[in-house]
């Protein structure tokens, strides 16, 4: 049970910083609360008494959204469900809607925020590999000023980030990838409401004929302390003709990705299957020519 004496909902960033200053050492920031409330239960943190909760989800700057051809800027309080509701956003970040549909459930997604997912920094946080694939930059602010940091520097380990005392994540600045096909592969113990055992974000851009890979972005999570971009695979695929053999070759690259303590063998098999399946799905959505991918390949990885 989460017990507080006061629940503050600042309407501006300045109010938020003032509240953080006023209650220094006695507060905790919340946004959607979907990580914080289940955390304060028996078996995890148990009953937790925090004098002041500061809810940043209503601050306008944290709810802004700008979707352009080159860049996307997302406020930290953007609920995950927006990736499904906002078609323009889905086109600019084509793996995100596929990720969102696997994220918790329709109801929790309406509350769960992008910023909360990143700051909570679970190795299985589903939005993080997608953001990593977009080279996301984390925008931070405090009463003293602003600073930016690459996502891959910001998340330093399970539950650990470079967020400083008195600081908030205000938003994320990401590369936009319109025209790319996206996919998100995820496996856990069941279909809905499930923590990723492995998850993979894939985006693919093809040439006009749908035969050659012009560009691709891949990032994986769930199998190591922090998400990892798969640049070796991206480099191997870029500029090559899309064939089943190429995708299998990429999946077989000896990268030693799995660092989890449990079920390593299983995870290695899954990673291989996901790479091929994710690339096929993203390529199809990018307009792959029917000649490029054989039916046998699709059947084997479907």
């Amino acid at each position, binding site marked *: 049970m989460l017990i507080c004496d006061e*629940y503050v909902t600042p309407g501006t960033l300045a109010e938020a910083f003032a509240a953080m200053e006023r209650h220094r050492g006695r507060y905790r920031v919340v946004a959607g*609360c*979907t990580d914080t409330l289940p955390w304060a239960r028996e078996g995890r943190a148990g009953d937790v008494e925090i004098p002041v909760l500061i*809810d940043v989800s209503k601050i306008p700057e944290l709810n802004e959204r700008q979707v352009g051809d080159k860049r996307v800027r997302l406020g930290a309080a953007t609920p995950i469900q927006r990736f499904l509701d906002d078609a323009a956003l889905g086109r600019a970040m084509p793996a995100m809607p596929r990720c969102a549909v696997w994220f918790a459930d*329709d109801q929790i997604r*309406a509350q769960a925020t992008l910023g909360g997912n990143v700051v909570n920094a679970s190795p299985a946080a589903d939005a993080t590999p997608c953001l990593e694939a977009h080279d996301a930059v984390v925008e931070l602010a405090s009463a003293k000023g602003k600073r930016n940091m690459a996502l891959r520097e910001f998340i330093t380990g399970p539950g650990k980030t470079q967020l400083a005392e008195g600081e908030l994540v205000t938003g994320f600045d990401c590369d936009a990838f319109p025209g790319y096909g996206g996919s998100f592969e995820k496996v856990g113990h069941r279909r809905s*409401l499930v923590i990723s055992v492995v998850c993979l974000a894939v985006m693919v851009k093809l040439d006009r004929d749908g035969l050659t890979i012009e560009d691709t972005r891949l990032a994986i999570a769930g199998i190591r302390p922090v998400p990892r971009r798969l640049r070796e695979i991206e480099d191997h695929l870029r500029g090559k003709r899309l064939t089943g053999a190429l995708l299998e070759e990429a999946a077989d690259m000896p990268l030693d990705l799995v660092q989890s303590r449990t079920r390593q063998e299983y995870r290695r098999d899954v990673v291989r299957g996901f790479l091929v399946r994710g690339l096929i799905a993203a390529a*199809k959505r990018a307009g792959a020519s029917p000649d490029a991918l054989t039916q046998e390949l699709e059947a084997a990885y479907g």
Partner: protein
Amino acid sequence: MVDIRLNATINGRKVSRDAKPHLRLLDFLRDDLNLTGNKEGCGAGECGTCSVFVDGVLMKSCLMPVAKAQGATVDTIESLAKSGELSVLQKAFHKAGASQCGYCIPGMVMAATAALRANPFADREEIKERLGGNICRCTGYQKIFDAVELARDVQNGRLPSTALLETDTADGDVIGKSVRRIDAPSKVSGRLKYAGDMIMPGMLHVQVLRSPHAHARIVSIDTSAALAIAGVESVITSADVPGKDGFGVFVHDQPIMARDKVRYVGEAVAAVAAEDALTAKRAVAAIKVVYEPLAPVFDPDEAMREGAAIVHDYAPDNITKHIPIRVGDVEAGFAESDLVIEENYSTQAIEHAYLEPEAGLAYIDHDDVVTVVSPSQNITHHRHMLARIIAKPISKVRFIMSPVGGGFGGKEDMIYQGMLALLAMKTMRPVRLVYTREESIISTAKRHPSRTTLRMGVTRDGRIKALAMRMVCDGGAYGLSTEGVMRKAAILAAGPYNIPNVRIDTFGIYTNNTPSGAFRSFGALQTQFATESHLDIIAERLGLDPFEIRRINAMRDGATTHTKQKLGSVSLMRALDAAEQASNWEAGAPTVRGPTRGDLGHDDVRPSVTLGARFAADDKQEAAE
């Protein structure tokens, strides 16, 4: 505490009230506004019993601080059936039989309402996906999906509204027919009150102190600091039990709170009744217990060995119950066999996970009758046991069975009702206890984990000549239903097969694990898992079709069971035929099939688990482009 002045529109009415800042929207709705249609099945976002609309968007109210509802429009299940008239979806749930215990149903109806608002033409896959945040433990979901499809079709005019009302039964003609449940309207509307929904004037709230040790002597319990807290009315321990303490379905080995020692992690040690649950929680934290840890035993095979820790003094061998069955001469049977196979099997503990966590309310009525209202699966037995424990004549004890939000055997044990009765007697006020999901999991019975050694002898043509089985089950710290479970496990161990020579031993063993108890199938699952797996292994070794080996040995009409029960009619052959057909079975020994599976890929076989049905239209369009 700084209260929040909450202004919101709830079920169409303006609400302006002070709320405690730590409340979740769910607490505010249920406790402050008495809107109990939505439930708390887990409190952690996992089950969907708490789903409500906030500004038209379905959300889990257990994950939402009440302050987030400031200025919002909130609609609960109570808003759907305006003036008692059920919505189309609610009627469809009734028609389709999509409610059993009903505990998940208000949340399901809310999620279904949201799904059809999001896409009035959603197909079954999309409906499944959109209902993914809601769990049902009873229905198997199919009837729920049927109901949503029915409502969709009526709403879209594809079916007439009379489709919601039709019944296939004439008066009195019900056997073999699909009959409408008379209790469904109360469940689909959220109006049915489960124990945790009930309130009484002047009611106190109960919280329980539980053991952190698996096995420890209780040196002392100091409740003075807890009693000193304002708002605390009473704190009880086993010292407050006036009669002969002890309950259990077969042996009365469990005190209503730990007496002298604790035997498992999560065992109740003391209970507090206070003006509100938070005060009771704080009082529980203020109780000081000094324990002296004892050597525990966690493995039932170890517990049977000489020198193991003793869980109950009355059973120095730690055996709760041993059931032996002997028929014929198994050694002679093995000697006659062409093939003798021995294997080991094990099964694990399983939690019932009924969606309604345990809850109960107790009060002393005007005639001094101690009354306990709870979802007990065994009220008559509980009444008898409680009378003895509180030293009252049976006429002064009453049990009222509240609607059971799922039981599956897990609510047969009188695990908390004794504490409630005692606290009501001490305070002379109504008292209510509502478990959290975690408390339910930590402290109540599980399915017995088992280890089985099975030896079976067969002739070359597949006839079973002898079966020898020894199963050891972890009964945990208390007896509960273990004796009955061991008995049924033994009786059904040899399956519905004619076997001339049988030797079966089942043992229920005390350990310092969470107690095991009744759970659907009551022991049959554990032994038959071994027997049926064994038949498949033997079929493979003999080159027989697994269905065939069962048919060869099947009991027929008039057979006598291993425990000498004469069976009039036996439906096994029909069941085998139906299973063979339904599974698209490819006839032949397990070794004859090639690398591809012909039983998959049929219309009635579910494809592998995936999500994204809502993209199906987009994907088709992309493929066409």
